[in-house]
């Protein structure tokens, strides 16, 4: 808003009153009333067609016993949702164990994926020889697909043939750790691989944020006698707040959507303990062709993530006050 008024003032126009001066035909001092909507239209159309409508349709599907191929798709009200909460249903155990798996993974991976890349970014933001090389090196795993890193680590972490246990043995450490077939080791593997794979992305976001913090602030702090920790706490962190909020929100959502890593590396083992929600939904909808139940799970899961995201935004707003 401030920018707009400045521009207007520089051109010598009087700043328009709030809402603009009405002219005949819906034309205001800033142009036609439809103009902003025209600018928004391309996105709105995409959002409607590929965002809102499928979501609403998904809710509609979740109220039915819905199989693409079967001629009748009876309306069953909230039965699909009831199944998810009733311990008698076939899906109950699978659904809650997959939620548990996703929750464990998210709670273990998010703190690491928020903190480790921040540390990396702080290091990579200093000037030292070979900085560009290291920046590239830390980002490199992220360009690989989940299929590549999944297969790679499955073989590296194999309990009997893998390189990791072999190296541990050479160092005189226990060399029979079941990295991919037993808990808690499977979680260590899944979280470790994910951090290795994706921390470069968050680090790049942090780096961009760090470079946006004006150097004068650091100088002023130094003049006031602030040491390194003080400068980090009172200049870097507040300067990064919007970036932190972005990183935290996207990382939580990405971690909650985990699928490929456990699908490929642990294959859900032991039993179904590392089988995640998204995997469960895919199986239900595309393997067992029960779109109704899959949609019900998606809707519930989306609601849960929405609550988490709202809490997340609240938390940051609270700090701002």
């Amino acid at each position: 808003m401030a920018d707009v008024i400045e521009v207007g003032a520089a051109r010598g126009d009087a700043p328009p009153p709030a809402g603009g001066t009405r002219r005949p035909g819906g034309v205001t001092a800033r142009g036609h009333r439809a103009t902003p909507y025209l600018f928004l239209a391309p996105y709105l159309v995409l959002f409607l067609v590929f965002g809102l409508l499928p979501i609403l349709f998904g809710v509609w599907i979740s109220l039915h016993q819905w199989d693409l191929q079967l001629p009748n798709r009876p309306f069953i009200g909230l039965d699909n949702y009831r199944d998810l909460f009733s311990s008698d249903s076939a899906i109950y155990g699978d659904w809650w164990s997959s939620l548990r798996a996703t929750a464990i993974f998210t709670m273990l991976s998010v703190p690491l994926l928020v903190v480790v890349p921040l540390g990396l970014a702080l290091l990579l933001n200093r000037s030292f020889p070979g900085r560009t090389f290291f920046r590239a090196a830390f980002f490199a795993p992220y360009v690989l697909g989940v299929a590549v890193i999944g297969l790679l680590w499955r073989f590296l972490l194999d309990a009997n043939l893998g390189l990791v246990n072999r190296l541990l043995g050479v160092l005189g450490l226990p060399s029979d750790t079941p990295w991919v077939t037993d808990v808690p080791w499977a979680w260590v593997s899944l979280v470790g691989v994910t951090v290795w794979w994706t921390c470069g992305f968050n680090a790049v976001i942090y780096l961009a944020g760090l470079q946006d913090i004006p150097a004068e602030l650091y100088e002023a702090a130094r003049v006031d006698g602030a040491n390194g920790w003080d400068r980090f706490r009172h200049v870097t962190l507040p300067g990064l707040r919007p970036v932190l909020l972005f990183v935290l929100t996207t990382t939580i959502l990405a971690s909650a959507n985990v699928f490929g890593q456990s699908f490929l590396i642990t294959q859900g083992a032991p039993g179904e303990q590392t089988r995640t929600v998204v995997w469960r939904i895919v199986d239900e909808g595309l393997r067992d062709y029960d779109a109704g139940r899959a949609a019900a799970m998606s809707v519930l899961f989306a609601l849960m993530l929405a609550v988490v995201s709202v809490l997340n935004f609240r938390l940051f707003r609270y700090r701002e006050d």
Partner: protein
Amino acid sequence: MIQNEMSRRRLLSLGVGLGAAATLTLAGCGDGGSISDKPSAAGNGGKDYTGPKVDLKLWNGFTGGDGEIFKQLVTQFNGEHQNIAVSVVTYEWQDYYSKLPGAVSSGNGPDIAVMHMDQLATFAARGVIMELDDVAKALELSEGDFAPTVWKGGLYHDKRYGIPLDMHPLGLYYNKAAMQRAGLDPNKPPTTKDEYTAALTELKKAGIQGFWVSPFQFTGGMTYYSLLHQWGGSLFDGEVAKATFNSDPAVEACSWLVDMIKQGFSPANVGQDADYLALKSGKNAFNWNGIWQVNDLKKSPDVQWGVAPLPQIGSQQAAWANSHNFTIVKQRSADNNKVAGAKVFINWLSQHSLDWAKGGQVPARKAVRESAEFKALPEISSLAPELAYAAFPPAAPGLGEVMTTFYNAFNEAALGKKSPKQALDDGVAKANKQLEDNRKKYGS
């Protein structure tokens, strides 16, 4: 090949891993229910086709070397039939089965679809594929032309939906170098329980864990599936209404296999594919694996290996097996010429399935199996006798998730998370609920 297919198809299914969104949008494409449900009276059941030229789309999941052989066969067919042009589309199997329903209901599906035997009932019940009884009748095909197990597997509710092309069983792969190191005769793989345990004991003395038991479907789950049938057990009752894989024989078979780990014949925590890789490198001596690995092993000339029918560990012979079947897909607007052309193709290819054997499969047709040319394929033909006692999956719709429950129960037992009895009891309790859901859904 299946094993490779499995991992590759897992990879590709990641593409649909957006999960929620994918499910919703996919479901959004179809309006179903409008698919023609007329009986397939078209043509004379596949003897010949004289109508105007038709273009047929065929889908399969042959992504390995078998895919090339299949395409060559199709090219040959197209050359011999001026008025039928078949074009082939190949997807990873797992992708394939999730794509097919959407493609069919939006009118973009194939005319002919290759399918595993255990998928036939699901797709028949869901109205995706057509009855083919007239093809069998017109071609005078009967049980006698095929192995009875394979032939009956194409039936659902006493109607034929699939014409079997091949069968792929589990076999005993053995590393000859490892056997020699333990002083065993590398040309005499064990055939009985006593021989098997004696060989494992010798191998253990030589420092070789001879029978790596994988906790995953490929290959440990399929090994257990075979043993369960060898002990005289079954996965389900006759009507596939109740799961029975916690019966006494099933628990005994599972305990025998899990004890392989306890007795040190197998390491614990065998990873996916580790059993097979260890066999290739001589760390493992025996691996019960699919016939599709023959072609993969042939690529490694330095590995000294052999393959034989599974040893008989339980009270009878049995081996896990599955089969590829041809099916004709129902279309929104039925085109009798296309259906007639498709039947001609299926019949032709079934008769030419010797070439298909070179892709690493046992042909379903008896005449081909008994030909001298087939016997000249030593590895493949050595597994043909298993056809007599192959344990094919039962024909019931929606069994995919129930089988996952079965394999996961074995996974928990093999990883020592639960006792065999406990793991199988828990699995059966869950499977019974899933079977009941299926009954409600498919109304059988």
